[in-house]
């Protein structure tokens, strides 16, 4: 009684046909919409040995001349027959799934109701259903599973609640596991409901304080004080009067003192172009503990605050992701751009709450990123800095003339020696970045704006 792969492949097409037939007879349209595919069929082998035990009992009974033992062995043979009878039935189920709120706010509880009806001709003596909850959502109330028995035409319904988190989440297929009455054979079926549920959760972007930028600006006016003299607010220098200078910028005090005409120059304030680069490689999905916020989640939250603050300040802001999935929102301004940015940060697959699992090619990514990056753009790089690649990338982008500010959420823990080592390595990377002239802000328990405000006091303008 081994797990026979042969019988599984032989049985599959016929049974699949049977399932479709049964469904068609009962309810044509609905059954056609629900897709079912048999994943695997196995012998569980749970009754293995019952025949051996039965024969041993009979043997002892014959030798010892005890009819009771022979009869007991005969009952054992009966159980062996019971184990051999029946295939695992096809899970001819119609599954519908409804979510209470398709566009929840982050942190809301969304109730999911699943209903499965047996549309086949056979009764399912042993049916276990496992709903395909999206990997980025956490089930907070009740397991998304049920075990029951269904007669033909009977239905089972169950409910559970998930906590909504940022992103676009689509449910996967329902897994149905059926067994024959004795449980000796098992069949796993994936059932795709006609309408796979989906929730889209787009957080509002809150402006997070003032974000100091570095001195790389565009020619447009903005709020960044520069070292260029011209019109502005803050005093910059005085120079000799040239014909055509505006009268209100003439230094009349000096004229009164010395009789010479001189012009006051003020610091020009210009706008910057900023690209928010979010580290979304597999390693950036690190978290201090399993239930805690991942590095990507913290980075995206902070990037949202920075996006809003910079856009309100008149700068041009773009978004890019450092990861296997491509994501690029060219720098721009205006309300339409703000909406696009919010959408990108919330639902772009590159910034999904769980890693994509694809391979990441760093040099290819860097080449593409540099081609897209405007020449006067500076980069705010959000990364948990848990590996050397992120730090070296920050230095390389900075070396290409795009001033980099590293903003690093602290996702390290301090429980074991290994965790402390990772935390130490991360602090070393921050130190090296700072000594290479790259600004770095890190934040852990405190909020992102507080950390920025604290770090800004240390920086020279």
């Amino acid at each position, binding site marked *: 009684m081994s797990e026979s792969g042969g019988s599984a492949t032989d049985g599959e097409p016929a049974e699949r046909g049977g399932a479709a037939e049964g469904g068609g007879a009962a309810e044509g349209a609905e059954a056609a919409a629900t897709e079912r595919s048999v994943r695997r069929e196995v012998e*569980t*082998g*749970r*009754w*293995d*040995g*019952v*025949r*051996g*035990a*039965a024969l*041993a*009992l*009979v043997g*002892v*009974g*014959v030798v010892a001349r*005890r*009819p*009771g*033992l*022979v*009869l*007991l*062995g*005969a*009952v*054992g*043979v*009966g*159980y*062996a*027959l*019971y184990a*051999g*009878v029946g295939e695992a039935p096809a899970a001819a189920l119609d599954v519908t799934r409804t979510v209470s709120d398709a566009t929840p706010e982050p942190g809301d509880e969304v109730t999911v109701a699943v209903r499965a009806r047996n549309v086949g001709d056979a009764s399912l*003596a*042993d*049916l*276990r259903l*496992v709903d395909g*909850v999206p990997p980025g959502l*956490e*089930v907070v109330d*009740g*397991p998304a*599973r*049920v*075990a*029951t*028995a269904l007669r033909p035409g009977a239905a089972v319904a*169950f409910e559970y609640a998930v906590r909504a988190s940022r992103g676009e989440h689509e449910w996967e297929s329902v*897994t149905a*596991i059926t067994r024959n*009455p*004795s*449980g000796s054979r*098992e069949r*796993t079926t994936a059932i795709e409901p006609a309408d796979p549920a989906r929730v889209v959760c787009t957080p509002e972007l809150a402006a997070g304080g003032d974000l100091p930028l570095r001195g790389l600006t565009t020619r447009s006016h903005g709020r960044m004080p520069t070292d260029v003299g011209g019109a502005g607010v803050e005093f910059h220098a005085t120079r000799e009067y040239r014909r055509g200078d505006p009268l209100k910028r003439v230094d009349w005090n000096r004229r009164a003192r010395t009789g010479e005409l001189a012009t006051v120059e003020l610091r020009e304030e210009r706008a910057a172009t900023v690209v928010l680069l979010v580290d979304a490689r597999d390693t950036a999905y690190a978290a201090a503990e*399993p239930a805690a916020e991942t590095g990507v989640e913290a980075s995206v939250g902070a990037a949202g605050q920075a996006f809003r603050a910079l856009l309100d300040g008149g700068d041009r802001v773009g978004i890019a992701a450092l990861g296997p999935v491509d994501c690029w929102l060219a720098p721009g301004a205006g309300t339409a751009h703000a909406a696009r940015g919010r959408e990108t940060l919330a639902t772009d697959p590159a910034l999904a709450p769980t890693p994509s699992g694809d391979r990441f090619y760093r040099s290819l990514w860097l080449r593409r990123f540099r081609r897209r990056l405007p020449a006067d753009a500076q980069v705010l790089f959000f990364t948990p800095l848990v590996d050397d690649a992120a730090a070296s990338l920050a230095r390389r982008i900075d070396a290409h003339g795009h001033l980099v500010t590293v903003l690093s959420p602290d996702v390290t823990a301090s429980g074991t020696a290994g965790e402390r080592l990772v935390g130490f390595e991360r602090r070393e990377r921050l130190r090296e970045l700072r000594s290479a002239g790259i600004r770095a802000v890190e934040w852990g328990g405190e909020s992102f704006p507080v950390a920025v405000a604290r770090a800004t006091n240390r920086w020279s303008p």
Partner: protein
Amino acid sequence: MSAGVAPDDGDDANVPTDPRPERDPRPPTLAVVVSLAAAAVASLAALIAAPTGGALLAAATVGLLAGALRRSHRVLSWAAGIGVVGLAVAGYQGGGVEALLVGGVALAVAWDAADHGLSVGAQVGREARTGRNVAVHAGTTLLAGALSVGVVYGVYLAAAGSQPVAALALLLFGAVALASALR
């Protein structure tokens, strides 16, 4: 009632593995209760048949409970094996036929409910709704046992005294051959 091998220790692999602590993987309470009740019946029946057998079946009951608590198919199989040995000892010491048959079916139901509970716990969890599933499964196993006992005991009564034990065994051998052909 496997005596040696515990082939479905890998039962957990049947579920799509889920790293989140969404569910409690212990077997459903009903399954454990049914298993222990059936095991108690088996122990009582074996005790009536022969005291040594009763002691061994009490050990099997403890084994079933331990297997359910430790979530181990292997421990359950060993407990069932001890139970079979206990019934064999009771029968060898000349226990009554009726008590032996009741003990055998009760032991089968006890092991089956515990083992089924383990797989339900692993795939669905304790907190989910599982009552109907467990009850239907235990009921089917009990029914299968009752049918076997009915047939076997009926044949025994009909042929009581006139047939030697060897003839009964030969009859049974024919039944086993038939069972193997059906597979």
